[in-house]
C-alpha cells in the first residue's frame, strides 16, 4: 500500500511541476517566435511564424512532462544514503502506460503532419495580385543578378512591386547558391544547369535582405544583397528609369 501512496504523491507533485513548466513553455512558445524572427513581409512568412508558434505550443506539454518527471526523480528519488542504494521495485513494464505513451505521441505526430500538409497546400506563394510577374535570378560567385523578362532590365538589387505574386526562376552560372529572401520565408537553391522556381507575394513596402545559404566558396558570406518592395507606381517608375542592358 505504501507503494500506492508513493505513486499517488509522485503523480500529484509531477502534475503541478508539469503545469507550471507547460505554462512557461506555452508563453515562450507564443511570444518568442514573433519577437525573435524577422518581421514578416509576406503571407508565407506569416505562416512560418505561426507554425513555429503552434509547434512550440504543442511541444511545451511534452517537454514539460519529460522535464517534470526527470526533475522529480532527481530530487525525490535520489538516494541520499551511504554507498550503493538498495534495489528499487522490480517494475519491468507497464503495458497500458507504454500504450498510452506511444498512442499519445502518434496522435501528436499526426496533428503535426496534418498541419504541415495543410500549410504546404495553402502556401502557393500567396494571392495572384493584379500583375503576377516572373523574375530571373542568377547566382554567380559571389553576386546575385535579377533580370526582368521582356524588359532588358537587369540589376544586382532586387526591386519588386507590393502585393503582386512574384515567381523567381533561379539558376546559377557556377556552383550551388541558396537564394533566400529572409523576411519573406522563401528559399530555393540556385543550381547550375537547371532552373528552380519559388513564388511569393510581398505584402509590405520596405527593404529586406537576400542572403546566400549554400556554401559557394571564398566570399559566400558576402553574397548578400537587398530587395526593395515598392508600390506599383514606384515600381513602374524604377523600371522605366533603368538603362536597358540588352
Amino acid at each position, binding site marked *: 500500500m505504501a507503494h500506492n501512496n508513493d505513486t499517488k504523491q509522485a503523480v500529484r507533485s509531477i502534475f503541478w511541476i508539469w503545469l507550471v513548466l507547460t505554462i512557461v513553455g506555452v508563453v515562450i512558445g507564443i511570444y518568442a517566435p514573433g519577437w525573435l524572427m524577422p518581421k514578416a513581409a509576406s503571407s508565407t512568412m506569416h505562416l512560418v511564424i505561426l507554425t513555429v508558434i503552434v509547434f512550440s505550443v504543442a511541444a511545451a506539454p511534452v517537454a514539460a512532462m519529460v522535464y517534470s518527471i526527470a526533475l522529480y526523480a532527481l530530487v525525490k528519488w535520489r538516494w541520499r544514503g551511504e554507498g550503493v542504494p538498495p534495489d528499487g521495485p522490480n*517494475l519491468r513494464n507497464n503495458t497500458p502506460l507504454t500504450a498510452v*505513451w506511444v498512442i499519445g505521441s502518434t496522435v501528436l505526430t499526426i496533428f*503535426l503532419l496534418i498541419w504541415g500538409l495543410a500549410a504546404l497546400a495553402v502556401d502557393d506563394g500567396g494571392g495572384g495580385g493584379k500583375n503576377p510577374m516572373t523574375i530571373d535570378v542568377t547566382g554567380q560567385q559571389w553576386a546575385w543578378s535579377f533580370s526582368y523578362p521582356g524588359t532588358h532590365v537587369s540589376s544586382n538589387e532586387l526591386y519588386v512591386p507590393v502585393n503582386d505574386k512574384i515567381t523567381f526562376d533561379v539558376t546559377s552560372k557556377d556552383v550551388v547558391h541558396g537564394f533566400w529572401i529572409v523576411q519573406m520565408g522563401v528559399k530555393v*537553391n540556385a543550381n547550375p544547369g537547371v532552373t528552380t522556381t519559388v513564388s511569393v507575394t510581398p505584402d509590405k513596402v520596405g527593404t529586406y535582405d537576400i542572403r546566400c*545559404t549554400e556554401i559557394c566558396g571564398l566570399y559566400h558570406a558576402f553574397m548578400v544583397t537587398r530587395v526593395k518592395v515598392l508600390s506599383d507606381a514606384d515600381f513602374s517608375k524604377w523600371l522605366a528609369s533603368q538603362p536597358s542592358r540588352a
Partner: protein
Amino acid sequence: MTTTLEHTAHESKSKAGGFLRHLNFFTGVITGVVMAVIFYVIGRVTLDQSGRGFVDQLTTVTGVGWVIGFWLGIGALTGVGKWFIGKDQTHADEMYLAGKDMGKFRYWKYTTDHKVVGVQYVIVTMILLGAGGILAMAIRTELMTPGNHFVNPQIYNAFISVHGMLMIIALIVAVAGPWANFVVPIMVGARDMAFPRLNALSLWTLVAAIPLLLGSLCIGGLSMGWVTQAPISEQAGPGMDLFALAIITFAVSTTVAGVNTICTVLTMRTKGMTLERLPIFVWASMIAAGLGLYAFPFFLVVMSLNLVDRMNGTSFFIAAGGGTGWLQENLFWLMGHPEVYVILLPAVGALFEITTVFSRKPLFSYRTAVGGMAALAGLSVLVWAHHMFTTGWAPTLGGPFMLTTELISIPTGIVFLCILGTLWRGNIWMRLPMYWVFGFVFNFIVGGVTGIYLSDIPVDNQMHGTMFVVAHFHYVFVGSVLFGAIGALAFWFPKMSGRYLDEKLGKISFWLTFIGVQVTFLAMFVSGLRGMPRRYSSYSIIFEHTNFISTVGAYIIMAGMLVLLGAIITSWRSGEASGPNPWHSKTLEWLVPTPVPLENFEVLPVITEDPYTYGEELVNS
C-alpha cells in the same frame, strides 16, 4: 590466466609472432611515408602532367601509397601474406598477436585483443575530438566579432569542412569504438570478437585516415564544407582529394568494424545468452552496426565518384557534362541521415545501461526499447530528403519525406519513456555517469523538438542553411551523443583502468559542459531565427551579440573538456582503485576480474536470466 593458455608457456617465446615482432605503429608510419614518397615519384613519372586532373591524380596516388604503406608497416597484411605462402599462424603467434606478456607496448601494435583495441579506440576518439575541438575554437573565435579578423575566409572554409568531418568521425566511433569492442564481447560471454584480426584492421585503418584528413587541411583549397556538395567540391583544391580519400578509408574501417560487431553478437554468445537476455547496450551496438553497413557504402560511393570526376574528368555530378549535383546530394544524405542514428544509438544504449544500474531497477520495457531502436534505424533510411527540401529536387516528394521524418518522433519518444520509466521510483545513485544521463534527457528534448520544426517544409524553407540548423544538430551531437559518450566513459572507466574516473573533476567538467552547451547553442538558435546563414565567416552587425555569447559558451565547453581530459589522465595514473564491480552491476563485464584477463573468462558462464533482476528478491520475499 585461462586454462587454454597454459600450454603456450612451453613454446619458445622468442619465435612467437615471427616478423610481426619488428612491426608497430612507428614502423607503420615510416613505411607509410616511404610508400607515399614512392607512389608520388611513380605518379610524377608516369602520369600525364598536362592532363587536367594531374594534380588530383598525383595527390590521390600519394594518399593511397600512405594507406598501403601504413598497413604493411604495422603488420595488417602479415597474416594474409603468411596464409598466401602457405604458412599458418601457430597458436603462439596468435597469442603474440593478442599482446600476451607484452606490457604497455602492445598499445602501439597491431594487437588483436579486443580490450587493447578498446583502449586504442578511446585514445583515437580523444585525438579526433581534440583536433576537431581546436578547429571549433578557431571557428568560434573568428565568429566572435562580425568581420574577418582571426582567419581569412579561405582558411575559415577549410576549418569548417575539416571540423565537421572530424567530429562526425569522432562521434561515429566515440561509443561504438571503445565500448562495442571492450565490453560487448564480455557482455555476451565471448573470449574475443568474432574476427580479432579484423578488429585490429578496423582500428588501424581509422588511424590511417586521420593524417589524410589533417593533410587535406594542410594542402588546402577546401571550399566545400563537410557535405562536399557538388559542383563546388569538384572545383575545390587538392585538399579535397585527400578529404575524399580519408572518407573512403574510414568507410572501409567502419564496415569492417560493423561486420565484426554483428557477427560477434550473433555467433559468439555464451550458453543461455538468448537474444532476449542481451544487455540493451549489445542490442544498441548491433542495430547501429547494421545501420552502418547500410549507410557507409553510400559514403564510399559518393566520395569515389567525386574523386573520379576530379581525377578523370567524368561528370557524375557536373551538369554541363550530363550529370547532376542532386545525385551527389542524394547519395550523401542516403548516408547522412542513417549515420546520425549510427551515432546516436550506441550512446542511447549506454545511457539505458547506466540508468538501470544507478536507479537499481530493471530497464523499463525492454522489448519496447529494442523495438524503438529498431524502428529508429528502420525509419532513418527513409528520411534523407529532408536535407534537400530547398534544393529544388523533386518538390512532390516533400510531403512524403515530411511524413517519414515526423514519424521518427514516435520511437524517439520511446527512448524517453524507457529512461523515465527506469528512473520511476528508483533509488537514484547520483554518481558521475548519472549526471550525463540527466544532461542527455535535458538536451535531447531540445534537439528533438527543433528537429520537428525543421521537418515542416514551410519552416524549413526559412531555417535551412541557417544557424538554427547548426544549433539543432549540435544539441543532438554535443548535448546528447557526446554526453552519452562521456557518461559511458565514466561508467566503464573503472573496468578499463581499474580506477574511478575522478568524481570531483568529472562533476566540474559536467557543469561547465552543460552550461556551455546551453549558452552556446541557445544563442545560436537566436542567431538562426534572426536570419544568420551558416558557414558565414563574416556577418551583419545585427548578429553581433548572439555570436559573442555563443563564443563565450564555446570557451566554457572547452574548459569543461580540458577538465575532463585532466580527470582522465590523473585518474588513469593514480585514481582511486575501484575493484572489479564498483557499481554493483549485473552485466557480465562487471563479473570478471579487473584488469580483465586475456580471453576474459576462465570458464565460460552459463546464463539463466537477464541482467536486470533488480528488486526481484523484494518481490519474492
